[in-house]
């Protein structure tokens, strides 16, 4: 076999880089259409209120205005709710607002300025209600009810709400003798933890453009990670009986991180466009609106308790997590589920009693965010293991090594860990070895120096029948077009998938083109681009399509030679049988004899990859089968300025068992980017609401995402490669994982060197300094 079989595992340049460095890559706000109107919205400004009335008549008469509408003016009611798990929200408020960023009125006008001017002329009369932001308060008996109809909404059977409370979903996982979790414990530790609300802060704000054509078909362009979820939600909401009448288009995305998964503004933009048929209605969020009016992430308050033997063997775990999921629960459901069973981290516990609650509060709704329910639990367990090690008088690292999951162990869900799931001990020891390469300076007059390492685990959370599907066509010149519904949101899927195809087909990667624009009319079904699964799931679909193409080439040749298929060899340029061969070009459209008649078919195939053996959670035990896991470990060296409280990351090490790294430079980019997001969560980021229930962190200064100066002085990335048997070339998911560990490992390092135990984040400079000062007294 010749050349081109080595592209997997090499850092070829990104397929989309040229377009992106020249500014020619098109994102949602760059799209231009004829007859485009601009949309602007009025948001509540109060967190919880009954809408007495909204006066829109003045706004309607303003120059350039085409339409002004409210939930009431369109007669929306309980038949106009949408969702995927719990159908609890309408495209805009109807008679009640449940968070201050909720939309109460919409203006469609010729220009943005005209729309904004009209918005100023809308008057709303609210009857304000008591509001609640804290999820633990929100489950209390006295708490105001945010959804009176909780329990009456349509929902899928797995997500059961508790009527007459603010709990829209309770997950309870029981493993072993869960009622006597600490019976065998000789020592226990416990604590309360808090992981605040956060924002994904992709640099591209959300946007959507919708148009209804003269036949009543819906065309929608969106900055979305989930075109096919949108299609389903919109078909259901607008009662469009045939999906062929919905055209969802996705351009390049300027980052997503979960904040553009499921749906956000699309139902409302489609609703607005329906009022002005033929026009394109465009709505792009301002940065402030991204904060107050898209989705947030995390927001967990919880309690965890661990039991162990005196030798450090863990025997049981109990945890309760309350998620402040904001005004609507639909996008939070699966996060609550994942958080529930994954909070045990990469450790073995014979007994588990784990509860997690999805709770309505009066913040913006909460949904997926890189890590999807894992960082919260990872934070709790890794912080609590420190406490346990101290109480036991045991080395921190030894306690972890002793309890990491081993092959044949069962995780919290009772799934058996296999050798092929990866090697967490190797990740952990290599992390420590890497840290040790640079000695940590001893404390001096100005600085404390701290070091710590933690383990991590993540499983991709996906619906039980999630699938990826591709179309593949060979062109006459042996270039290949592959069509996928996987979205390129920066992660590098176009490049990695081309590498997988090139290596399978043994052709140059430059001959492969993966589509970046998605159009649900042309692109095969893809569940959605989340859960770090694109390399794995779409990659597998591509391998299957490529293998079928190879078979088709052989079939064409077999017709010519009349040999059995199995004897024919394909090598990327020709097929051969002993000393006879045919160039692929002679076969790509079928084989044509010299007299013109043709046998065989053009090379055109499909490939699919469906998640197997994933089941729904059992309502009684919480047990179910999710997909498998990726193990890893992260370590840090940091210094703390004694005078200012400033924390500087000196060295940040990440080791992941990636199975197989398809493109090392891109994989490394996922690690550096993910680690920085994790550092932001540890030290800087937190969504804050004021006493009026309005968010104050509504720009990129007040909500401080990491800057260049926050970057570790040194990043190390280690990839272990224990092949995933069902992964493409052995690869497994790694994209979310680097964001998991920074909060716990940084807080552990702080505690080891200062003795100060933080149980919530972010640990800002000011907070660190205050704690240091308090410690001096």
């Amino acid at each position, binding site marked *: 076999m010749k050349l081109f079989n080595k592209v997997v595992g090499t*850092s070829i*340049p*990104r397929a*989309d*880089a*040229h*377009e*992106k*460095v*020249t*500014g*020619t*890559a*098109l*994102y949602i*706000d*760059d799209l*231009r259409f004829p007859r485009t109107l601009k949309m602007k919205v009025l948001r509540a400004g109060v967190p919880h209120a009954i809408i007495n009335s909204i006066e829109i008549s003045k706004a309607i008469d303003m120059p350039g205005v085409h339409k002004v509408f409210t939930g009431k003016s369109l007669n929306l009611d309980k038949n106009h709710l949408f969702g995927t798990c719990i159908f609890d929200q309408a495209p805009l408020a109807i008679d009640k607002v449940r968070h201050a960023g909720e939309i109460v009125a919409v203006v469609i006008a010729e220009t943005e*300025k005209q729309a904004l001017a009209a918005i100023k002329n809308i008057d709303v009369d609210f009857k304000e209600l008591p509001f609640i932001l804290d999820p633990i308060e929100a489950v209390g008996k006295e708490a105001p009810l945010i959804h009176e109809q909780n329990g009456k909404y349509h929902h899928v059977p797995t997500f059961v709400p508790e009527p007459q409370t603010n709990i829209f979903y309770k997950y309870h996982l029981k493993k072993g003798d869960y009622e006597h979790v600490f019976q065998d414990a000789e020592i226990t530790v416990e604590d309360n933890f808090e992981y605040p609300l956060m924002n*994904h*802060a*992709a*640099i*591209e*704000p959300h946007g959507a453009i919708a148009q209804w054509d003269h036949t009543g078909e819906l065309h929608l362009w969106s900055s979305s990670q989930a075109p096919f979820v949108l299609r389903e939600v919109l078909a259901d909401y607008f009662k469009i009986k045939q999906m062929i009448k919905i055209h969802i288009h996705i351009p*390049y*995305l*300027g*980052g997503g*991180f979960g904040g553009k998964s499921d749906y956000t503004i699309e139902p409302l933009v489609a609703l607005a466009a329906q009022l002005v048929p033929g026009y394109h209605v465009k709505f792009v969020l*301002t*940065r402030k609106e991204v904060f107050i009016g898209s989705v947030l992430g995390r927001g967990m308050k919880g309690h965890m308790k661990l039991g162990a033997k005196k030798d450090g063997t863990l025997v049981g775990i109990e945890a309760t997590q309350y998620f402040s999921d904001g005004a609507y629960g639909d996008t939070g459901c699966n996060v609550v589920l994942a958080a529930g069973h994954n909070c045990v981290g990469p450790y073995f516990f014979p007994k588990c009693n784990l509860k997690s609650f999805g709770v309505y509060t009066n913040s913006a709704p909460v949904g997926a965010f890189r890590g999807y329910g894992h960082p919260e639990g990872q934070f709790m367990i890794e912080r609590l293991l420190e406490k346990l090690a101290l109480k036991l008088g045991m080395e921190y690292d030894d306690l972890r090594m002793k309890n990491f999951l081993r092959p044949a162990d069962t995780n919290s869900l009772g799934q058996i860990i296999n050798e092929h799931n990866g090697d967490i001990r190797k990740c952990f020891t290599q992390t420590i070895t890497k840290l040790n390469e640079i000695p940590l300076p001893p404390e001096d007059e100005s600085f404390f120096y701290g070091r710590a390492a933690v383990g991590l685990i993540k499983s991709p959370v996906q619906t039980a029948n999630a699938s990826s599907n591709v179309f593949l066509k060979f062109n006459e010149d042996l270039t290949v077009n592959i069509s996928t519904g996987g979205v390129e*949101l*920066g*992660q*590098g899927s176009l490049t990695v998938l081309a590498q997988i195809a090139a290596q399978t087909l043994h052709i140059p990667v430059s001959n492969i083109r993966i589509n970046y624009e998605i159009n649900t009319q042309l692109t095969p079904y893809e569940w959605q681009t989340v859960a770090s699964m694109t390399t794995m799931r779409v990659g597998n679909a591509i391998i299957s399509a490529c293998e079928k193409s190879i078979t088709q080439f052989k079939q064409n040749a077999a017709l010519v030679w009349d040999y059995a298929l199995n004897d024919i060899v394909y090598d990327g340029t020709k097929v051969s049988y002993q000393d006879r061969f045919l160039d692929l070009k002679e076969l790509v459209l079928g084989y044509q004899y010299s007299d013109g008649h043709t046998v065989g078919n053009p090379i055109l195939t499909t490939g699919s990859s469906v998640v197997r053996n994933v089941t729904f959670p059992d309502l009684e035990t919480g047990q179910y089968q999710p997909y498998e896991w990726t193990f890893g470990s992260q370590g840090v060296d940091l210094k703390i300025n004694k005078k200012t409280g400033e924390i500087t990351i000196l060295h940040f090490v990440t080791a992941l068992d990636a199975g197989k790294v398809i493109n090392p*430079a*891109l994989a*490394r*980019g996922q*690690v*550096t*980017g*993910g*680690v*920085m*997001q994790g550092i932001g969560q540890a030290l800087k980021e937190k969504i804050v609401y004021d006493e009026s229930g309005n968010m104050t962190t509504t*720009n*990129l*200064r007040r909500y401080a*995402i*990491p*800057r*260049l*100066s926050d*970057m570790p002085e040194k*990043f190390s990335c280690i990839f272990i490669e224990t092949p995933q048997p069902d992964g493409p070339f052995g690869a497994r998911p790694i994209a979310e994982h680097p964001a998991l560990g920074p909060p716990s490992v940084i807080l552990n390092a702080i505690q080891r060197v200062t003795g100060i135990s933080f149980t919530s984040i972010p640990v800002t400079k000011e907070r660190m300094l205050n704690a240091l000062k308090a410690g001096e007294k």
Partner: protein
Amino acid sequence: MELTIIINKKDYAFSVDPSDSLLSILREHLSLTGTKNGCSQGHCGACTVVVNGKAVKSCITKAKKLENAEVLTIEGVSSNFILHAIQEAFIEATAVQCGFCTPGYIMELYALLQADPDAEKEEIHKALEKHLCRCTGYQPIIDAALLAQEKIKNS
């Protein structure tokens, strides 16, 4: 008000509102959509362009102040399908992920390295510190900046 601005070496006459930003002129009047809008508040740097040799955030630059100014945007950086050294460096150093911050960074570096090809590492850091990138973790961007400087010096 009427106004002439030289954008990517061509003269353009506009009638603008006093409140119009340079960013809205570029994107909405000329469809020069390579310049990105990440915040409109001067916080992210995605909208950075070069005005009279200096990198500025176009979202907080009023168009009315730019009579006869020379503006360079990402669309004016490469010519005839040939990439500029900075663009090449961003590709080679894998400094692009979603790419939304990329044009802003490239324009920032363009102004800096045009003015001072020997800029010290600290100056490069200072210039790049004005920008936000949510994807890369910054390391690849620093690598690209240093590589670009090397390429420019050697050319």
